[in-house]
């Protein structure tokens, strides 16, 4: 094992000083000068309606208004995985609050005033609000043109239905597996929609200049994907990839909401109508809730068969996803779960049906966890209940079924090396699982709950990352990458990897969020894949630079290259302890020879990574045959809670979570993901709840009525545990873990509530009100 100096250290974040001093600039902090224009959106007041006509004449006459644009100006489809979305609604609106038009004006006030004067005539259509209704025979179609939409080859839409995609797993012999079972448990679990709640709004400023250049500054997780989608959507206007440039400043939280393209394309499109002016589109808190993406809701029917010893003989998981009005991104959530809804278990006989269903609710899309939080709420509740029925310890039943390296996943490819057993053991010990806890207060019930988790990056098989690395005169380094630091610490981790290879301190490495003109390609900062994917590209770029350095010193100093190495910003030689050459002497200037000439020149490294073994090519009826997921990250968690029997209020006393991140490049940042993810998970299970009225209008799109936790809502204690079973193709063995940390929280709290009160709640959120009502109704329906 090589000795590591920078990788594995809890370095301070390289953007720490910027962020605590107020120097960090976010999109809406940038200055665009006196020519800046402002856009205001006109929204549809129906969840489902045909648009008869739009009259913009009155709005156009408001002083300081430059233009009003509608769907007619941009009759283009766009989307990441399926082109079912529009820049502005075309002939119909499909969710309440959908963008119909935009007014562009010199001031925000004029734009707002004029937006109210845009007259739209609608013919309302029947609303389809639940996925169960949407798949009924004769259900109203939300996308009659579904069969004409372009989509990735691994999606299977059902024409003339509301089913945009159906991912099927058929592995082994499920009927035989259930026949062999000693016990079969079948039940339904409900997980509603949730909102990301990044504190910074979506913001985009676009400028289409007189040379035909379209520049977009956006709060974004996906600068290159945005460039790609803008260019392909606006191609009919003659705009090419070469014309589009996306610049990404700091991002005030993403959690999936700023992945792909949502409102940013409005700015890009509008800019083409006001050539020469920058135009700003700034979302507000309400629109953050109802017009970006929401986490998809799901109704999951789960059937699991086990032997008396708890070993799983068969699993059937049927998931009906409420994917909303547009599924261009959300359908891949459905796909990801369709491939993985066996959970982190060895299941020889499995069938999964994961249905992506259109509804007249806001578009569902990526949210931290990408569907895994949703299906594991049911599965990990189910495992606990099966253990209870069989009289097996809930941790023991997981241990017996936990997937091991080499076991076959649901799609038939072998599971990667992993530390699931170590995670289970570590959590069991730290939480004090066997110790019975009793409250002295008769009103307080104490419970313990446990959950496993797993998640794979869901990405196209040709997803890639790349890096340029350049030295400066003082041997400091600029790393050019296009992953985004959305708070997770990505840039710091990239700097640590380069520091390790080059033996240059982290503090001398500068790396910033990208500009697609200057920085090399990265697919997107999603799927918890950038530490792994871009980390590989950075490592390769640093190795490339190192090779150039050593080759140069070898040929100028006549030393064998294999005897040379880098240490403390110098080139040293194994066979000549007296030899040392500081990097700063030559990484730009080159090395001077005896005759006065110079050799070398600026050192510039290059690295590219693509997982060349990944493939989505498989039998669509079974999903067997491909290798769609590069690897899974696994872990275990447990909680101790107190519940007040009178009020239903849950207090989280302690949470232990162990995650196998392969190698913690920066342990402090890994722990930060655990602490933050756990609170986000607690919030979804205990506090957050969207409410919609009869028109399908969201009633609580604000932080007054949609509660996220404050500093007064913390668990008393969180113990993060890092497990390190290396990923064979990860940089220093690392694999992603950012999303995963919130996944086990909801089921383990549900399990702890059952342990405390003897009630099983099968729908989220588990609010105090729901606990009290369940306690009151206990026995009534039995």
């Amino acid at each position, binding site marked *: 094992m090589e000795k590591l100096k920078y990788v594995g250290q809890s370095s301070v974040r390289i953007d720490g000083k910027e962020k*605590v001093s*107020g120097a960090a600039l976010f999109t809406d902090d940038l200055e665009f000068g006196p020519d800046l224009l402002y856009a205001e959106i006109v929204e549809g007041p129906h969840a489902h309606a045909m648009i008869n006509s739009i009259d913009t004449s009155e709005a156009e006459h408001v002083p300081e208004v430059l233009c009003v644009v509608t769907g007619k100006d941009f009759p283009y489809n766009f989307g990441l995985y399926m082109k079912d979305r529009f820049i502005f609604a075309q002939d119909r609106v499909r969710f309440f609050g959908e963008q119909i038009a935009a007014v562009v004006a010199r001031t925000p006030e004029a734009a707002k005033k004029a937006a109210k004067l845009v007259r739209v005539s609608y013919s309302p259509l029947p609303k389809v609000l639940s996925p169960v209704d949407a798949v009924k025979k004769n259900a109203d179609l939300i996308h009659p043109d579904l069969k004409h939409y372009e989509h990735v080859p691994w999606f299977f839409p059902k024409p003339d239905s509301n089913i945009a995609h159906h991912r099927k797993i058929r592995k082994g012999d499920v009927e035989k597996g259930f026949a062999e079972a000693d016990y079969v448990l079948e039940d339904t679990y409900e997980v509603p929609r949730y909102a990301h709640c990044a504190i910074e709004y979506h913001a985009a400023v676009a400028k289409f200049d007189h040379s035909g250049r379209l520049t977009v500054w956006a709060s974004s997780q996906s600068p290159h994907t945005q460039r790609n989608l803008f260019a392909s959507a606006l191609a009919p206007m003659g705009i090419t990839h070469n014309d589009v440039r996306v610049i990404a400043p700091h991002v*005030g*939280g993403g959690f999936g909401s700023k992945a792909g393209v949502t409102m940013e394309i409005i700015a890009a499109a509008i800019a083409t109508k006001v050539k020469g002016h920058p135009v700003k589109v700034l979302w507000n808190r309400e629109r953050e809730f109802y017009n970006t993406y929401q986490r998809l809701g799901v109704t999951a029917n789960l059937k699991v068969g086990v032997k008396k010893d708890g070993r799983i003989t068969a699993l059937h998981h049927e998931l009906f996803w409420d994917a909303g009005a547009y599924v261009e991104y959300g359908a891949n959530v459905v796909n990801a779960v369709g491939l993985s809804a066996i959970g982190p278990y060895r299941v020889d006989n499995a069938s999964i049906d994961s249905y992506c269903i259109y509804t007249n609710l806001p578009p569902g899309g990526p949210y931290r966890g990408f569907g895994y939080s949703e299906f594991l709420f049911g599965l990990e509740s189910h495992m606990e209940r099966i253990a209870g029925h069989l009289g097996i310890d809930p941790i023991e039943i997981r241990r017996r079924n936990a997937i091991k390296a080499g076991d076959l996943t649901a799609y038939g490819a072998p599971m990667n090396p992993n530390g699931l057993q170590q995670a289970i053991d570590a959590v069991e010990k730290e939480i004090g699982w066997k110790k019975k806890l009793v409250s002295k207060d008769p009103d307080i019930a104490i419970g313990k709950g446990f959950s496993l988790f797993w998640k794979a990056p869901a990405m196209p098989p040709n997803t890639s990352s790349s890096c340029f690395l350049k030295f400066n005169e003082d041997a400091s380094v600029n790393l050019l990458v296009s992953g985004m630091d959305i708070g997770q610490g990505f840039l710091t981790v990239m700097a640590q990897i380069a520091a390790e290879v080059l033996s240059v301190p982290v503090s001398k490495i500068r790396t910033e969020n990208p500009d697609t003109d200057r920085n090399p390609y990265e697919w997107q900062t999603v799927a918890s894949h950038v530490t792994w994917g871009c980390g590989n590209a950075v490592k390769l770029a640093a190795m490339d630079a190192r090779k150039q350095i050593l080759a140069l010193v070898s040929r100028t100093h006549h030393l064998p290259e294999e005897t040379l190495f880098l240490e403390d910003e110098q080139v040293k030689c194994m066979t000549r302890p007296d030899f040392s050459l500081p990097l700063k002497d030559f990484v730009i200037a080159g090395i001077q020879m005896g005759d006065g000439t110079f050799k070398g020149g600026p050192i510039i490294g290059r690295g590219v990574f693509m997982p060349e073994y990944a493939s989505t090519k498989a039998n669509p009826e079974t999903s067997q045959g491909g290798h769609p997921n590069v690897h899974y990250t696994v872990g275990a968690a447990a909680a101790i809670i107190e519940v007040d029997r009178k009020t239903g209020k849950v207090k989280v006393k302690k949470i232990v979570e162990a995650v196998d991140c392969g190698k913690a490049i920066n342990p402090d940042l890994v722990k930060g993901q655990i602490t*933050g993810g756990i609170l986000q998970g607690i919030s979804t299970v205990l506090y957050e709840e969207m409410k919609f009225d009869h028109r399908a209008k969201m009633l609580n799109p604000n*932080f007054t009525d949609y509660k*996220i936790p404050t500093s007064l809502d913390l668990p008393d204690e969180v113990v993060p545990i890092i497990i390190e079973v290396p990923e064979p193709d990860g940089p220093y063995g690392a694999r992603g873990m950012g999303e995963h940390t919130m996944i086990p929280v909801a089921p383990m709290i549900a399990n702890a509530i059952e342990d405390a009160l003897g009630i099983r709640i099968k729908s989220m959120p588990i609010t105090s009100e729901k606990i009290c009502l369940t306690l009151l109704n206990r026995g009534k329906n039995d």
Partner: protein
Amino acid sequence: MKKISFSLNGEQRFVYVTPNEILLDVLRYKMGAKSPKCGCDTGDCGACTILLNGKAVRSCLIFAVEVEAQDIVTLEGISRDGLTPLQKALIEHNAFQCGYCAPGMILSATELINSNPHPGEEEIKEAISGNLCRCTGYQPVIDAIKNATKKH
């Protein structure tokens, strides 16, 4: 338009505003103080927190005309003479992730420390309870404030 004058980060400034202009917008878009952020516009999130005569207040809930002749400090003012022990501790603890809530959070903590140099954990939690953070789970921020204010 009305001319108003006040002290911003130790400097006497004036600006013309309409009676309905919000202080947060005036600071950000007319006076170049970008550190106060907007996260809700309704006083729920605390990202726009500033110090008004030493008190941490939400600048999205104040009309600009109300601050005539008063004293305003934003994070730019705190950082002007180098980082404070609180800011240094926040860096050491990797306390922030995306950093969007940081300006408001730091001003709330600064108000606390100015009146209570060695606060307990509960006092720290209470002081920043009006500043929403979606990334960190708050604990690293609390630990940093504790470390910066512990008795030596």
